[in-house]
């Protein structure tokens, strides 16, 4: 099981609390996490990554174990601590816009 922390606006949209727990099939990667989020919470489709291209939205960032992994391949394995559910995968709205 993987823990995912969503930004406030997406928690409100999905009507969930601070951390959501998701079951991942196969290796724990960004893509697998996002697939699982969108399967469990369809209203989040298109809000984190583009529906068609699957590219991360420009002002959304991903953190794992205190490291910004936004620019890593969506198919790169996440750290063991995240894959094993000991650390959350953070989805963060970038500080932007003045």
């Amino acid at each position, binding site marked *: 099981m993987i823990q995912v922390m969503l930004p406030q*606006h997406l928690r409100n949209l999905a009507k969930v609390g601070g951390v959501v727990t998701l079951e991942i099939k196969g290796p724990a990667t960004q893509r697998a996490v996002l697939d699982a989020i969108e399967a469990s919470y369809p209203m989040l*489709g*298109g809000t984190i990554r583009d529906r068609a291209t699957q590219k991360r939205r420009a*002002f959304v960032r991903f953190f794992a174990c205190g490291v910004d992994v936004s620019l890593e391949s969506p198919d790169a394995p996440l750290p063991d601590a995240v894959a094993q559910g000991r650390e959350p995968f953070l989805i963060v709205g970038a500080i932007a816009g003045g």
Partner: protein
Amino acid sequence: MSGVRVLVGTRKGAFILSSDGRRRQWKVDGPHFGGWEIYHLKGSLADPDSLYASQCSGWFGQLIQRSKDAGRTWEPAGNDFKYDGIPGSHQWYDGTPHPWEFKRVWHLEPSLTDPETVYAGVEDAALFRSTDGGGTWAELSGLRGHGSGPRWQPGAGGMCLHTILLDPIDPGRIFIAISAAGAFRSDDAGKTWKPINRGLRSEHIPDPNAEVGHCVHRIAMHRSRPNVLFMQKHWDVMRSDDAGDSWREVSGNLPSDFGFPIEVHAHEPETIYVVPIKSDSEHYPPDGKLRVYRSRQGGNEWEALGNGLPQRDCFVNVLRDAMAVDSLDSCGVYFGTTGGQVYASADSGDSWEPIVRDLPAVLSVEVQTLS
């Protein structure tokens, strides 16, 4: 007992203002979707409890919300706006080709007869329709595909399809407007389209009389007479008496013919309202006086309506979708400002009062008249 519900979209959420038919005391409900831009929300004529809202942000993109209980609760609807086929390109600001990219929904127009059918006008300009309450969306691609699409160009606010008028008499007829392409009409329920811009003249484009390329800000009609259209263009207030086949200017004695919204009185098809703005580089009222202008002759002769509106040091704007009328016996007129005020007149514009003064910048105002 009759009543009024005013649906307000702002930069930071939606608000629902409600009153009885006297329109003296108002209940303010909101913000809904706090922190999100709500470009537009609108209720169904066929089922006034059915509301749609366009919710978006620079971070998380576009969402559509649906309420079936007059805005007490909302559920996210579908947000998959996929252009039909290969989207192709339009003109960028510098005239070079630019690929069509979906950005946001500017306007939602529920069907006049079916609460589950709703149209969405989007940026980059296209028209979508849902027949399942916003769950899924299909582009009416005959609009972008009719031939002039590659020549469309964004206005300063983006290349947005911002106006959708459904003909209450001929169900096959739809009017839309795009900044900065112009106005278009379909006579077959959205399958095919033609530009309806003859008579528009825009000095700032290479061919002032071009078939497309005009920055139409808003068009309006009276439900009883859908062949008569009124237009607030970037500059110029225009009128058509033949469903857009030809236009003539009716700016008359306005202090400025630049502006954004235009509306028609609910019971007097020749009574129209605009809000003159000083210029396209100074988006505030002339002389710091916020005044609605009313013509009772369908244009040309205008009177200033400022009773109750700030008449000094006022430098707000009124955006294109931020004016609406109710259909009570004494027609109510409403508009919202970029300063966060929503003003109401219960006497066709003769006098005004603020319903609220301190909302976030108002993007849209719609009114539901409740029986």
